[in-house]
């Protein structure tokens, strides 16, 4: 029996062990090729889809060079037209200004325009020359248009006129007939308000009620409040004095009015000295009560971002789509998901909702550009209508996530790719965005808040989350801005992009600034392809530097501050911790060797720490921000400053509007070896190692490296990695600046220009070569492992405050931080 039991236990153990190993071995037999953890999802024909149309609304002044600027504002949408308020200004010449009868009002352009639903202008009402007369029949000293809005189905134009006699402001309203499109007579808006009462908004609420809000600020009293003047459809007015209804409430601002129903209006209030409050106005009983809208706050909805439509409904419009707020059921309902229609989110993110009829959505967005010296806005009407089938059926979905913010150029690139790709469809996700995570947390800020440490903690959290999801096969296919997350630079998480940049697919490293690409590598692998970058350093006059100096050692920096900066540190806007992180990131290659070993026990680290301890404060005093800005335009004396060259415009600006006579160069941040400026990768892109559609993801990445996309990135204030894009945009920027300089030369004398620090001579073309020289001098990329950074910031304060010696602190940091690096294997 005993032998029998031994046999049974041996057989059991053996079968378990061999069975397990055998099973895993069988897995290998079944799978002949390595399969990534992710799964490719294709779009089905039944997946929701909205057909979209985009109609451009022309102001009619697009080709008119005499126009300084033109803008368009939506007034209302009718069944058959869009009604717009066009406003702008004619160019003013020097001779015009010197004319004794000069009046700015004569140069204003004010029109109401009616457009058909397909964007054709049908009628225009020019009221630029409308003159409003006072009670004596005399024109006012000055009259300006406040706005034009819809009221009771008509367009109402609001004017502010200045009465010289009484030295007061008088309000007028002019109604435009909706049928004849003709101006009515100006009607004075009587103001029966007491002193210290200021009329603010007059809006239509409920079913034909008019709500006029009046802000009260009794003199000598620090309490603010409001009065509501509610006029019902019969013309009877009821006054609600909030200072009596809620005497303890200090109401600073009520400027949002949300029609919850036909008889209830929600009034979010910004309070002075306390949390924001919501009031509910009942139009039947004229009672105002406080209401709890915590469910909206819990859903991360800000009252100040809500849009209400004239015919009802309250909506949230953000870069993911449009949602409706259902106050009755206390829930947020999706109306339009931008993932279900191909939109350029850079355009629609800031678009305003015009109408929603239960299925179709109409929005208006505006793009702007500088054409020569003219500022131009172009407005578009977007219409989204539910489609019966999805036209992208069969395409493979590629998800793309950013760890920071989305740029307009990236959104445009996604839009263009989706329009042209026959096999793939890219959908953005905000799941790993550090800024989204920040907004979802209830961080409390006070004077002791260490924002640098918090930023590192958030980055570390997002990095971990993304790493976890990638390994589980649930992460995105494409990761943007992963270059600053050292944890992800690992073949388990990201593909080595060098395999794609070999020129076989038309894209090679030779087309890019290879020094930047090389600096962005991790060892021999390139996990994140840099798309754009900035360069950071201290802008200093060459005369104040030694021959061949490209940066500052710590001692040189101290000397430079004393001798050349009159004691004013160019990095004065940094707190101690921020300065440390900046300088550490710029010389991180000194402290982490190629084997990943942390080496802090050296003079370089000690010098860096001591430099930060001796030259920076724990927190930046307020007076530093009040006294000066980073870079003051029109400064007469050149001040060395920290300069972040996002693109060549930043460099040219210092020529055109600073006291830089062309001899300023960008030097590196203080470091052990006085190295030159470093690059910071602004946008990078990587492909998940677990993506089931890596080749498809590459087709999208390739589009980001096209000249068209790179030029778009450049206009987003970032240096493009593609050399041809740099060449194309640099000359354009220079020409634009020289055009401004030429214009300045017509307005300013030499003496005035010298006084204001404005350049009158054209910037030479050699500046482009100088700038390119700076780019090509970059040999390292700023970067720091956020987990290691957190430990540095945890332990260093003990040294800064004199509690521990530097050796003790180094020992602790090395011990803890090295463990993190070692764990990753």
């Amino acid at each position, binding site marked *: 029996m005993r032998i029998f039991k031994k046999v049974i236990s041996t057989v059991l153990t053996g079968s*378990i*062990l061999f069975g*397990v*190993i055998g*099973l*895993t*071995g069988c*897995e*290998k037999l079944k*799978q002949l090729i*390595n*399969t*990534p*953890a992710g799964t490719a999802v294709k779009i089905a024909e039944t997946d929701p889809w909205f057909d979209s149309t985009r109609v451009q609304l022309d102001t009619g002044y697009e080709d008119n060079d005499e126009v300084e600027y033109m803008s368009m504002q939506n007034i209302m949408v009718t069944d058959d037209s869009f009604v717009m308020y066009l406003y702008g200004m004619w160019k003013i010449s020097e001779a015009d200004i010197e004319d004794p009868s000069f009046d700015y009002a004569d140069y204003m352009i004010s029109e109401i325009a009616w457009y058909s639903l397909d964007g054709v202008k049908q009628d225009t009402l020019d009221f630029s020359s409308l003159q409003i007369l006072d009670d004596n029949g005399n024109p006012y000293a000055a009259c300006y248009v406040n706005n034009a809005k819809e009221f009771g189905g008509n367009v109402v134009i609001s004017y502010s006129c200045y009465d010289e006699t009484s030295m007061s402001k008088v309000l007028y309203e002019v109604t435009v007939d909706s049928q004849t499109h003709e101006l009515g007579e100006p009607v004075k808006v009587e103001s029966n308000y007491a002193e210290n009462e200021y009329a603010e908004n007059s809006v239509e609420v409920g079913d034909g009620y008019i709500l006029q809000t009046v802000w009260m600020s009794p003199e000598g009293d620090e309490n603010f409040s409001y009065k509501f003047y509610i006029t019902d459809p019969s013309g009877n007015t009821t006054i609600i004095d909030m200072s009596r209804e809620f005497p303890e409430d200090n109401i600073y601002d009520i400027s949002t009015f949300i029609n919850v129903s036909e008889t209830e209006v929600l009034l979010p209030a910004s309070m002075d000295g306390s949390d924001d409050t919501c009031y509910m106005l009942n139009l039947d009983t004229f009672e105002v009560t406080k209401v709890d809208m915590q469910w909206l706050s819990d859903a991360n909805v800000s009252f100040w971002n809500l849009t209400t439509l004239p015919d009802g409904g309250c909506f949230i419009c953000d870069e993911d789509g449009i949602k409706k707020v259902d106050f009755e059921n206390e829930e947020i309902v999706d109306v339009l998901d931008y993932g279900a229609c191909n939109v350029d989110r850079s355009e629609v993110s800031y678009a305003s909702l015009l109408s929603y009829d239960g299925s179709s959505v109409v929005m208006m967005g505006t793009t702007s550009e500088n054409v020569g010296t003219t500022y131009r806005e172009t407005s578009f009407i977007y219409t989204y209508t539910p489609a019966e089938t999805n036209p992208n059926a069969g395409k493979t979905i590629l998800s793309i996530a950013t760890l920071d913010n989305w740029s307009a150029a990236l959104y445009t690139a996604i839009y263009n790719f989706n329009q042209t790709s026959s096999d793939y469809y890219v959908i953005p996700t905000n799941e790993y965005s550090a800024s989204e995570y920040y907004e979802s947390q209830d961080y409390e800020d006070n004077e002791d808040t260490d924002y640098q440490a918090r930023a590192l903690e958030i980055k570390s959290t997002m990095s*971990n989350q993304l*790493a*976890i999801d990638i*390994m*589980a*096969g649930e992460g995105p296919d494409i990761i943007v801005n992963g270059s600053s997350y050292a944890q992800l630079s690992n073949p*388990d998480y990201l593909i080595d992009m060098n395999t794609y940049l070999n020129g076989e697919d038309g894209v090679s490293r030779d087309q890019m600034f290879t020094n930047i690409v090389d600096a962005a590598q991790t060892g021999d692998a390139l996990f994140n392809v840099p798309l754009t970058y900035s360069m950071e350093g201290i802008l200093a006059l060459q005369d104040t530097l030694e021959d061949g100096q490209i940066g500052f050692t710590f001692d040189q920096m101290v000397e430079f501050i004393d001798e050349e900066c009159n004691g004013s540190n160019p990095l004065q806007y940094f707190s101690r911790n921020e300065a440390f992180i900046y300088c550490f990131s710029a010389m991180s290659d000194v402290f982490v060797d190629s084997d990943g070993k942390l080496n802090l026990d050296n003079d370089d680290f000690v010098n860096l720490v001591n430099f930060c301890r001796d030259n920076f404060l724990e927190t930046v005093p307020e007076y530093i921000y009040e006294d000066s800005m980073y870079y003051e335009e029109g400064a007469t004396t050149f001040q060395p400053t920290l300069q972040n060259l996002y693109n060549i415009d930043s460099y040219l600006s210092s020529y055109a509007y600073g006291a830089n006579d062309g001899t300023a160069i960008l030097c590196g941040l203080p470091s052990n070896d006085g190295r030159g400026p470093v690059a910071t990768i602004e946008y990078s892109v990587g492909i998940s190692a*677990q993506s089931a559609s890596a080749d498809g993801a590459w087709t999208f990445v390739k589009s980001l490296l096209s000249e068209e996309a790179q030029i778009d990135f450049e206009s987003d204030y970032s240096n493009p990695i593609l050399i041809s894009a740099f060449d194309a945009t640099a000359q354009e920027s220079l020409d634009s600046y020289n055009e401004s300089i030429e214009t300045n030369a017509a307005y300013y004398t030499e003496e005035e220009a010298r006084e204001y620090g404005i350049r009158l001579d054209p910037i030479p073309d050699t500046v482009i070569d100088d700038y390119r020289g700076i780019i090509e001098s970059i040999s390292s990329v700023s970067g720091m492992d956020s987990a290691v950074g957190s*430990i540095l910031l945890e332990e260093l304060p*003990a040294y800064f405050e004199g*509690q*521990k010696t530097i050796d*003790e602190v180094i020992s*602790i940091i090395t*011990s*803890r*931080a*090295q*463990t*993190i690096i*070692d*764990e990753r*294997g």
Partner: protein
Amino acid sequence: MDKEAINNNLKPHLRKATAAEKRRAHNIRKIKEWGTFTAYLTPSFVGVLVFFFVPLLMLLKISFQKSSANTDFAGITNYLRVLTNDAFISASKNTLTFALLAVPLAVILALLLALLLNSGLPGKSLFRSILLNPMTVPVASIVLIWQVFFSYNGVLNGLLGDLFGLKSTDWLKSDYAQVVILLLFIWKNLGYNMVLFLAALGNIPTEVIESAKMDGASALKRFFSIKLYYLNSTIFFVGIMSLINSFKIFREVYLLTGDYPYENLYMLQHFMNNAFTHLDYSKLSAGAIVMCVVMIGILGVLFFVESKTDSSVEE
């Protein structure tokens, strides 16, 4: 008519059972007994299976995979990753060092205390209660107390500074960190071990001791020649429990020092916990299996030694 025929003609309740019937009845009884045993054992067995064996098998499987989601066979790659990982090696050293220090100290000190209390000291019940109290203190409170005492601006530094003019030491981030944790471990577990020894001392036959006394054996002789033998199994049990508790000290260390403590406090559980946080399940599983194998080895040796000394005690 032979006996069998006569037997067969009798009524069933009068008939004698045949050999076959006896065997059949025996088998039925055996089956019934098995059924009863199984019925009582099944819930426990299922519980152990579901919460112990099955996870262990899953752990073993994952340790041979590329990742939890990618089930490709990775061979011994994960084991190599773990065994060559500097963090794992460091954690193993620290865990082993701590166990080698903590377990003998816990056993010896507890035994000495038990002997002291068993010697007829007045207030034995009171001392026993006092020494057992640390076991009842919640972990969070223990952590708080230790922070108050041993932090850089804590009580200990204050006392040393005031009384002896010594410079403050960040105890938990220094080479003394393990000593601090050792103190915590001893303080927490001493009472329980002592109670076990007290119970075992109470079970030693007094006549054996008395007769040894009458034979002129000294106290030391009596202890090493008689008491120690009877305490053998208790020492073994207390040792095993202390070894297990030496691993559980991770909880207090984690609360005191976080994910990445000073190097000599970085234990195997830190490695596991961080791997879990980063969802590196394959590395975590391989590490756990390695740890499991080592523990089986250590316990196997202990059991072997125990069985040898136990048999000599019986003799």
